[in-house]
């Protein structure tokens, strides 16, 4: 027991932090809530380093302490800290500000459970924990758009969750256990395997916003505050991808899951970018772009168990994605939601404009930025696994991606007679952008320290 708890120190730190934050919120001290959150997240990140090399499970195999969950913590915890800064910049002074921070930390706790789950019950718990907090955050503005978005999100989430639990019960029936490690018993029982697998794809696909379970995402992101959209597009998505990796690692390949996932990946990438091409609302554009990026993640998933590059690919692209996507959303917070707001933006604010160019190019996958390194790993992994056609689709889509992101860049440097709106940028936002831009720029060169 003591041993198990030792390995859970980062999670426990986060849980305690979130609780203390709630207490501070009751005292109406939003700044204290924020500080507590940042300190707690930093501490949890540092504590993770001590268990990073472990490869074990705790509580009877239900929770995994391995490379994937360790790096999930190293990616998601700092990512959440950045999201706190973004939220502070957007919501400072509003009523219920502190509760947003503590909710963000609680959702991240659920995300960590997803990323480390070794058991179906934990998977369900993670989906529910991340879901409940997310619904509340999306409806934070309490206006019509947010309410509709939250409602939609909730309905989709309930249906997807119900389907997932129903399907998982088949796996339980088939193996007599809720542990992933027993899934090997499903070899040769295609019907049961398929029932559970569809359920997992629905439940996690909804969480990661994969096509065709993505419909809630653009509305939810657009209705929610931009900082919340940034958080949802990054943290819960990566958690769901990592959870995919944890489940599918143990599922026999003979059930045909790689092809099913590959088809979902192809549809997700293509539909995401094609739809993004026609958006005029930058938040919706980024929403569709993050749908497409989720498809790229799946290139690593299909290679699980076949290519040694698969796990590093998911982790490296995950880290890159957190930095570049959060950064892009942060710039949207400054510029505004409409593509018209970006007209001439790069001329009015040269530094922030340059940062946005870096984020967008990294999302496209231009070397030597971090996103390129991640995509390189993903392509390598998928080719290793024999999914050449999928990589062809992925590369064709990155041509589309260029079109999507260039639309913003071109607008940013068009010549417009406009008011020189150069109100100072709040400090948390500046810090967040600085960190994300440094990571996006520099980590490409230091990718050697990442797992291999």
């Amino acid at each position, binding site marked *: 027991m003591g041993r198990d708890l030792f390995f859970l120190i980062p999670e426990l730190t986060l849980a305690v932090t979130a609780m203390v934050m709630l207490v501070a919120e009751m005292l109406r001290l939003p700044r204290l809530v924020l500080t507590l959150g940042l300190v707690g997240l930093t501490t949890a990140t540092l504590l993770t380093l001590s268990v990073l090399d472990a490869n074990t499970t705790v509580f009877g195999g239900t929770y995994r302490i391995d490379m994937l969950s360790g790096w999930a913590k190293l990616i998601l915890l700092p990512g959440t800290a950045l999201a706190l800064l973004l939220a502070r910049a957007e919501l400072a002074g509003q009523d219920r500000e502190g509760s947003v921070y503590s909710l963000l930390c609680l959702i991240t706790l659920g995300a960590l459970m997803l990323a480390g789950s070794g058991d179906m019950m934990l998977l369900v718990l993670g989906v529910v924990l991340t879901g409940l907090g997310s619904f509340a955050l999306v409806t934070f503005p309490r206006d019509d758009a947010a309410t509709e978005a939250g409602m939609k999100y909730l309905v989709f989430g309930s249906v997807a969750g119900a389907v997932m639990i129903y399907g998982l019960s088949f796996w339980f029936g088939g193996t007599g256990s809720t542990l992933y490690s027993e899934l090997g018993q499903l070899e040769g029982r295609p019907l049961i395997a398929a029932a559970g697998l569809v359920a997992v794809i*629905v439940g996690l696909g909804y969480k990661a916003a994969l096509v065709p*379970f993505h419909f809630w995402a653009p509305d939810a992101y657009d209705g929610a505050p931009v900082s919340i959209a940034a958080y949802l597009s990054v943290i819960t998505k990566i958690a769901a991808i990592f959870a995919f990796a944890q489940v599918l690692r143990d599922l026999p390949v003979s059930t045909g899951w790689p*092809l099913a996932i590959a*088809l979902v990946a192809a549809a997700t990438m293509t539909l995401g970018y094609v739809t993004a091409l026609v958006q005029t609302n930058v938040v919706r554009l980024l929403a569709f772009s993050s749908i497409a990026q989720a498809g790229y993640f799946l290139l690593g998933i299909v290679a699980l168990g076949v290519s040694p590059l698969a796990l590093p690919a998911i982790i490296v692209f995950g880290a890159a994605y957190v930095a570049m996507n959060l950064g892009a959303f942060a710039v949207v917070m400054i510029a505004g939601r409409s593509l018209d707001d970006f007209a001439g933006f790069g001329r009015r604010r040269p530094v922030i404009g340059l940062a946005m160019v870096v984020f967008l190019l990294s999302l496209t996958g231009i070397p030597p930025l971090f996103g390129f390194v991640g995509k*390189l790993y993903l392509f390598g992994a998928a080719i290793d696994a024999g999914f050449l056609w999928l990589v062809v689709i992925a590369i*064709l889509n990155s041509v589309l991606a260029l079109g999507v992101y260039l639309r913003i860049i071109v607008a940013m440097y068009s010549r417009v007679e406009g008011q020189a709106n150069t109100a100072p940028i709040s400090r948390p936002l500046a810090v967040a952008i600085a960190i994300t831009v440094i990571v996006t720029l520099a980590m490409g060169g230091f990718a050697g320290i990442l797992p291999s």
Partner: protein
Amino acid sequence: MLVLILLAPLLAALVIFALRRAPEVLALFAAALGLLGAAGQMFAVSSGVWSTAVLPFLPDMPIRLVATPLTAILSLVVATVATFVLLYAVGYMRHDPQRVRFFGTMLLFVTAMQGLVLSGDWITLLAAWELIGFASYLLIGFWHDRPGVAAAATRAFLYTRSADLGLYIGAFLLIGVAGTSEISTTLATTGTPALIAGLLLLVAAMGKSAQVPMQDWLQRAMAGPTPVSALLHSATLVAAGAILLIRTAPMLPAGALVVIGIVGGVTAVITGLIALAEKDLKRLLAASTSSQYGLMLVAIGAGAPIAALLHLISHAAIKSSLFIGAGVFQHDRDGTGMESLAGAGRARPGIFAGFALSALALAGIPPLAGFFSKDAVIAATLASPAALWLVPLALAATVLTGAYMGRALRILWAGAAADKTEPAPLMAAGLGALVVLAAVLALSFGPLERLLGVDMAEGGLLAPVLGLSAAISGLVLGWLITPARLLGPIFGFAQRGFVMFGGMDALVARPALAIAAACERLERWLYDLVLGFGRLNLSLGWLAQKIDTKGIDRPIFGLVRRTINTGTRARKLQSGFIHREMALAVIGMAVIVAVLLAAPLYS
């Protein structure tokens, strides 16, 4: 040395962007340093010292730079042309307020190009390849405020990036087969993988070297400043494709060679025709670039990559001096349209002499460099097993080269030299140096061949005689006869850039748009389908609602009804958006179930 070649331009670019002043001095200094490094490298290699530099990057995938005779020669070519073009650019860009951005980006481009040339590793090459594409996008779109420029830059980027697909897959295929990303090791690949990889690399090379049917972007890229055209479209960006094939030539099996040769030959002829019909001097030069790279591909296809290399080197010097000359005339007449340039040469006899010398060199008149390299290409085609195809194509391209250069010379010379011109010493200096190179470069060919350890097959007298007669007849035709009469019925066709072969517009852009339209229709159809599917339910719901509102609500709760009508939120939710989307999700689930159930059939 290797590091100096790369770091000098890179650091200078960063310093330029940081300081934002004195970009010319820094750029020239860096270019000179890079040239020094490349020359030292060349010296070291020629005295037998090959070196490798490995910089840590991705785990198991370091940045690997190698100096072999081939890479050292190419690096020296790039450094030389870059230096002279930058020298010229100092004059050309003198009045431009954006000089900092210009010189910074140019140096970044040079860094990327040197990285590509010297790379000893597929991953390094991929990264450099992408960087080149991106830097060229910035440079072509340098004057992005002018109409059409941004579109041209985007088009160039999209074309070459689509073709990059070939490089990615080809490189990963080779890495997968050989188990290492080191280029020299992967070149030992044989059999079917080598054939497939070779064809894939050809696709990438076709994009970058503007081969038919992807030639269109290069002409549009002329929207950039002239120094950009001189640098990118002579020795660097466009050369990347040919360099890729030259470097992988030892691996290419006969099947791939034949395809490469034919692609090159067809390009050489078609873009030659386009050049002849062109109405703009810079676009003429651009089309001619495609054509000359076509000839290089012919040489590679004929199994003589060294002949391609020689032609690449001489073309680099010749074409950059032609572009530079064109840029001087462009400054005088504010344009590069053939009509506005009439007589521009007469106003500047010195510049015209340099331009004419380069033009004759390109046409292949002895003793200029172009004669010897073209001779090597033709000799290679004569010795090739596919001579039947390649020789006529190469000769036709040579005639066309003479013809369009002759025509350009005539237009520049004939006509009134009305305007008086201000002297342009820096531009003239850059031009002069390159013209001298273009003229005497041939002297270096012998030592180069020895260094590369290749003895070019001496084709006897047949090749030079064929080449020379083709070149002279082309020059005479071009000088005497207008293209409209020369080309006859295909003139208009060529002038429109052979819309039938019209490159990506027909092959990729339009189908892509059609697919997009089809997708939209499909999506609408899906919605309709789902809608129809659920119509029964919905109408039942409507019926219930009607009974509710009409039978009960209106008489009794009229107020409530009005509230419902104004509550747009609620209405929107009831109108079935989520239902529809849920239904789509269910269709998706059904597809996944079908795939999974079919698993025993394919796994």
